[in-house]
């Protein structure tokens, strides 16, 4: 079983507008509401690939109930911690060419100490039965920035491999605990590990700084590609050019595809191919999730995995 942790889950309201700009009155051409958050998005990939997955995190209010109900419909296992606050709502505005015109993310609820304790209790029980753990997304208010680091340490005590997808201080503290794989969220970020991430070389330099903390694999997002960096090697995973419908869950699907292979065997090239196929497959859905395994497999041969020599 794989457990995915989405502490600051959200419902994503996606609006598709016919206009190219939003600085005027706009009427929605199509709108959908879906449960969102990194770990939840990745869970859909595991589920499509037939992996037993349990989704954990905090939920509250109507948005929380919607999140739980929608996930349950898919037969993905849930083990949420219920809170007095409200699960946040994110607004994603796309034009009809699928370009993100705006994305507005709420901060999320304030988590009380008692709610955090309750989560930890459930987390410990799930750890005793899972093979791999994904911690993904931002932290809600009230949760210390070292929270991911604490969870990673607990997982290590149970010999559970961990994958961290985060940004800012949650990432900085988290990597100090030496997770197995890290995908820094670099959306809207100029620098990482004190390095300006302006090109491939700088991305690799930042990735190597993360590897120094005991991390074994770093995944960096690029424009139409991913970089996968290990202490010994660097790969570029090229995605085929397609008409993207919704890019929001591409990185989550990539991590999901990679973990699917890595949970059983250390076959990194195959993991990257699965990650690439899942990523591109999710981009074809307005719901930003992999629809089915067949659609994913269609892209296997179109994922270009090449080793880079940047030394």
């Amino acid at each position: 079983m794989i457990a995915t942790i989405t502490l600051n889950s959200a419902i994503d309201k996606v609006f598709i507008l016919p206009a190219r700009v939003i600085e005027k009155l706009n009427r929605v051409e199509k709108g959908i509401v879906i449960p969102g958050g990194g770990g939840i998005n990745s869970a859909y990939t595991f589920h499509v690939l037939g992996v037993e997955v349990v989704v954990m995190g905090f939920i509250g209010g109507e948005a929380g109930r919607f999140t739980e109900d929608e996930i349950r419909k898919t037969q993905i296992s849930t083990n949420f911690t219920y809170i007095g606050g409200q699960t946040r709502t994110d607004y994603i505005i796309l034009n009809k060419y699928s370009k993100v015109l705006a994305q507005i993310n709420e901060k999320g609820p304030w988590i009380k100490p008692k709610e955090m304790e309750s989560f930890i209790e459930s987390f410990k029980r799930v750890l005793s039965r899972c093979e791999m753990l994904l911690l993904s997304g931002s932290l809600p208010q009230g949760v210390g920035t070292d929270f991911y680091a604490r969870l990673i340490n607990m997982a290590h005590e149970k010999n559970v491999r961990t994958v961290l997808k985060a940004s800012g201080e949650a990432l900085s503290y988290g990597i100090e605990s030496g997770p197995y794989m890290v995908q820094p969220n670099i959306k809207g970020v100029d620098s990482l590990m004190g390095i300006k991430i302006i090109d491939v070389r700088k991305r690799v330099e930042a990735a190597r700084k993360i590897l120094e903390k005991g991390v074994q694999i770093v995944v960096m997002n690029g424009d139409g590609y991913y970089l996968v960096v290990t202490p010994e090697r660097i790969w570029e995973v090229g995605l085929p050019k397609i008409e993207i419908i919704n890019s929001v869950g591409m990185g989550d699907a990539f991590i999901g595809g990679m973990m699917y292979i890595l949970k059983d065997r250390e076959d990194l090239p195959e993991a990257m191919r699965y990650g690439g196929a899942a990523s591109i497959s999710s981009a074809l859905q307005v719901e930003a999730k992999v629809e089915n395994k067949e659609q994913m497999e269609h892209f296997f041969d179109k994922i270009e995995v090449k080793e880079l020599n940047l030394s």
Partner: protein
Amino acid sequence: MKAKDMMIRDLTSVTETTTLREVENLLYHSRLSGVPVVDNESKVIGYISEKDIIESAFPGAGMGAGMLFVHNWAQTFLRLSQAGEGLVKDYMTKDPICVTEDENDAMVVEIMLSGHRKVLPVVRDEKLVGVITRSNLCRVLMKKENK
């Protein structure tokens, strides 16, 4: 149809040392009438329901008898408010009936109806993998009928 097709894959549960106040809060938010009690490895060892919580203030009264005699309501309410600090282990039903994922639908219905159970835990190797609620059971069986 098997239990795995009828269950909600929800692992919401409590332990023996959870307080009744925490259980009440959990039941309120989760919209469940009861939850499995598990050990540290998620093995189902008990079951606690809203009925157990209310009965904690009426020791020995038995709510199913059709009549309830209360000497002093003020005393009873006081007892109920204090019951929040009680621990699950003192009020839970021990070793509850559970089914495995492969149990057939007829057996599931029989177990739920014969024991007046609102929630039936589903286990694999004794570990909780989901629950079947009455409302979910009705929903799934009606769908089956419509096919």
